[in-house]
């Protein structure tokens, strides 16, 4: 036999590629994640797994269809809201669901190292019009307000943006245009634009979850090629969090040093006035205000609750008086600036958390998670959902 027909090869390439594009698009229409509770390390970027915006939107659709008439509560935020250290059954967002009851449905899209509107904020914006009573609840620490396109999870923002899942916001469009000149992620955005047509990220992420993962990662080693749905929540096999002073003592001095460098505590955003009292500088307040304005488009701020999660009082007691004062000022200023921008705010700096509520400096033990769930549930119930206005597209 001679060589295969070149025309048939070309036709086959087009058919094979186009079929993959169609299959990729089809996978975005259903919730592929069985019994989804959170983005644990096997379902996020630490193990080179990047769920797409469409796939996370489908999780919300699957778990809480719009016709259910439940109030959808989309959680964002960092590892504290992600329940770092808490096993699946101990997860604070499960306690929140129980506390809120059947009228609400809580879905947790928080992720380690995420900013206030990464992941959860992006998905909330995608869903805001379809779910006019949906609420967004996230956590951060005062002074850390990166826009969703300027963070470690910017890939998800661009995925949603390029697919046209986000609402039209003239302010954001103008900002993205301005940033284009100085941006160094043009190749990255190009790949997401290509994906919005070819759906390769959607298809192969689905294949990794359902059938076979296609590359080796140092986290998973021998289990790298197993389909992700077979890997249970990473925290389930971790040792239980021991919340006592002897454990905290072992964390000194590294954790204390890290706490000293956190934005609310570090001195570089503060100055001492003529009386010697610490005040946040006008420049850093202005910067915070500008960053807060870029978090979410109008009018989604009114449907959003930002929680300033607490620090372990055992570690706070090891700080100097000046450091504690700066932290208190940061929490107060952050609350004021966010409320001024239209957000609901829950500051838990002084909400009765004790050392046994923590696993380290910031992450909560199961008991701390339950206390957080109660405080957040009370705030959610007190939010005025009657004033919700769907975002325009």
């Amino acid at each position, binding site marked *: *036999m001679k*060589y295969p027909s070149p025309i048939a090869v070309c036709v*086959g390439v*087009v058919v*094979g590629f186009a079929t*993959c594009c169609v299959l990729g698009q089809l996978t975005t229409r259903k919730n592929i994640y069985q019994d989804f509770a959170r983005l644990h390390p096997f379902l996020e970027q630490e193990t080179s797994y990047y769920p797409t915006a469409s796939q996370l939107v489908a999780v919300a659709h699957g778990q809480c269809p719009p016709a259910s008439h439940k109030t959808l509560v989309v959680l964002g935020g960092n590892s504290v809201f992600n329940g770092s250290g808490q096993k699946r059954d101990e997860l604070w967002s499960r306690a929140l669901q129980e506390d809120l009851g059947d009228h609400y449905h809580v879905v947790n899209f928080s992720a380690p190292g995420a900013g206030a509107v990464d992941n959860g904020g992006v998905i909330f914006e995608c869903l805001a019009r379809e779910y006019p009573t949906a609420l967004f609840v996230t956590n951060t620490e005062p002074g850390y307000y990166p826009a969703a396109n300027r963070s*470690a*999870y910017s890939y998800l923002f661009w995925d949603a943006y390029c697919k046209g899942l986000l609402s039209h916001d003239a302010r954001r469009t103008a900002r993205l245009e301005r940033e284009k000149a100085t941006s160094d992620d043009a190749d*990255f955005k190009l790949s997401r634009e290509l994906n919005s047509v070819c759906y*390769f990220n959607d298809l192969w992420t689905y294949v990794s979850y359902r059938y076979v993962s296609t590359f080796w990662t140092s986290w998973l080693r021998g289990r790298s090629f197993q389909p992700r749905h077979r890997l249970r929540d990473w925290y389930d096999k971790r040792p239980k969090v021991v919340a006592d002073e002897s454990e905290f003592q072992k964390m000194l001095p590294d954790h204390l040093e890290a706490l000293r460098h956190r934005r609310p505590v570090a001195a570089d955003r503060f100055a001492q006035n003529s009386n010697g009292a610490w005040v946040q500088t006008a420049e850093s307040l202005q910067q915070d205000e500008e960053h807060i304005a870029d978090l979410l488009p109008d009018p989604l701020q009114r449907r959003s609750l930002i929680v300033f999660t607490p620090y372990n009082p055992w570690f706070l007691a090891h700080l100097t008086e000046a450091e504690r004062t700066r932290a208190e000022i940061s929490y107060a200023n952050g609350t004021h600036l966010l409320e001024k921008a239209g957000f609901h705010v829950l500051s838990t700096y002084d909400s009765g958390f004790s050392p046994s509520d923590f696993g380290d400096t910031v992450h909560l033990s199961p008991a701390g998670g339950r206390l957080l769930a109660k405080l957040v549930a009370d705030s959610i119930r007190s939010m005025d959902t009657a004033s919700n206005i769907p975002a325009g597209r």
Partner: protein
Amino acid sequence: MKTSLRILSGFVIGIALGVFFHYLLYRISLPSEPFIYFAF
């Protein structure tokens, strides 16, 4: 018969290449290191 085989084998090879190219785009789009390792 031989012509049909040439066309069929060519088509199958083409499909495999098309699928591989689609997968390649996915792999190229992934960062070599997670973004959070750069951010923190």
